[in-house]
């Protein structure tokens, strides 16, 4: 299970402010803290308030890499910002994200291949997010075909079937699980799968409970990665336990510790 730390995102007030004022401290503190929590990647997002996203992304990538050696997930709808960030990444990065829309695929996939980056492909297009698993998988198939077409290794494609908040779109929640299951049959080797996990609990009380329960369920369906709160101890322990219970990593008494330190 790959945990992508979600915290270095301009949507959070402290990071948004820090990006605006070019104050590296909050970003660097969160980078270290998330690594200590057990994150394997760090998501980097300038946030909507950032005026020059290219410059913002470059600055964020640089200051985070000064203190942390984790690979980065460059998170933006501005592909020039992502490309500028990729130029600076010391380790192969991940692009977050690309919907199943032809012009965007043509922009993102060649850029990923050039920079040896992975791609998060969203099961949505101009029409929005499908209601059921079947249509999510149909869009995933377009992304799988694109990976094949542009020469992106299938293991480097992470399909995100887009989870919506349970208190807004409850019927979507099991459909996403089914989509994760079916995506695994689209190719051999199969594409990977990822979720923006915290979205499932937006505006609900006791968000960590919903997050970790859904994580365990999704892992049983084949989920490979989650953009999540790496400092939620119970969540990380759930991920470690699920990995062992699914026989994905070899059991030992210190399995939780191993999960966090690898």
């Amino acid at each position, binding site marked *: 299970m790959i945990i992508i730390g979600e915290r270095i995102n301009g949507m959070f007030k402290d990071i948004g402010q820090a990006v605006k004022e070019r104050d590296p401290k909050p970003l660097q503190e969160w980078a270290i803290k998330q690594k200590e929590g057990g994150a394997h990647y760090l998501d980097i997002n300038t946030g909507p308030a950032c005026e020059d996203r290219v410059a913002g992304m470059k600055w964020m990538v640089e200051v985070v890499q000064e203190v942390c050696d984790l690979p980065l997930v460059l998170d933006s709808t501005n592909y020039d910002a992502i490309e500028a960030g990729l130029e600076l990444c010391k380790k192969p990065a991940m692009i977050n994200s690309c919907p199943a829309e032809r012009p965007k695929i043509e922009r993102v996939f060649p850029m990923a291949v050039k920079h040896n980056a992975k791609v998060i492909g969203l099961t949505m297009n101009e029409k929005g997010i499908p209601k059921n698993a079947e249509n999510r998988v149909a869009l995933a198939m377009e992304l799988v075909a694109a990976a094949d077409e542009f020469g992106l290794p299938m*293991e480097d494609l992470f399909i995100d079937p887009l989870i919506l908040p349970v208190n807004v779109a409850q019927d979507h929640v099991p459909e996403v699980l089914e989509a994760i299951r079916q995506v695994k049959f689209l190719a051999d080797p199969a594409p990977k799968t990822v979720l923006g996990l915290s979205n499932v609990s937006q505006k609900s009380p006791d968000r960590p409970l919903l997050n970790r329960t859904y994580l365990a369920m999704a892992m049983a369906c084949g989920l490979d990665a989650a953009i999540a709160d790496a400092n939620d101890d119970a969540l990380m322990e759930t991920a470690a336990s699920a990995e062992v219970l699914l026989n994905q990593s*070899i059991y030992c008494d210190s399995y939780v*510790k191993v999960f966090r330190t690898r």
Partner: protein
Amino acid sequence: MAVQLLKERYASEVGTVVLGATKEQGGTRSVSLTVGGEKALPFQHYEGEIPNRPLVAMEVTDVEPNWPAPLKEVLGDVVKDPVAWAKKCVEEWGADLIYVKLDGADPDGANKSPEECAKTVKDILAAVGVPLIVVGSGDVEKDHEVMVKVAEEAAGEKLLLGVAEQENYKSLVAACLGNGHSIIARSPLDINICKQLNILITEMNMPADRIVIDPMIAGLGYGIEYGYSIMERGRMGALQGDKMLAMPLICTVGFEAWRAKEAWASENDFPGWGPQNERGPAWEAMTAGALVQAGADILCMRHPAAVKAVKKNIDQLMERK
């Protein structure tokens, strides 16, 4: 239409361990040897590099061993003198390194002092240039004293010392850490304990590149497939990124193979089994041959003919076509 071979892509690789230190490296060995480093399953050269060949260590005991007749015959009188024995293993029988078993330390046997044991090790070090593996008699209490002494006396030689077990590893780890040696981590045919023990040892600040796993094995006909599957599972884990299983593997082939009745039983008792002096070494060689296929990096062996056959087998397996 051309058939495209599907190749596995592994996320990680097996770590390496360096055995023996030359003069420049602070020891007195004429060679230092590297084991491990596999980037694919054993000998799958087309999927990843297999940079280091498996090594054969020949077993030498510090007191005359009570081994079956075919071994005694071929080894001859040198078994009375560990130094001469070690020399012959290297010079005549092609041992890559020497596996010294300090059986003489056993309180129920010769009960040699730690000083005597350390002297034997020093004498062997003086007589041969290859790296050494040294293990105690198996008596937990006594081995504490003996191995600490050996570690101190041979400081800087980069010995491989054994054996650490889940209930009993701290003093040996400390002795290895302080004197620059590497350690054998032994688990009883149990992948979970194997991983846990490696974690415990690394928690004492022992670098992972100074640990060799002894998964314990069984001889051919006595459950070798169980050992094989444990080794295979651990190696798959290592290649998929499990750092706490990514150490080279050592197997006590000679010990296990010669415990098999098929190896030691006399021709008089079992005329149908054929000549004993062929059967025993064949049993040992077959055991070793199976285990290199499972990922063994160091084979501890006894019979020169078995060693010769296995080294030839390894040569062939290491050929890249």
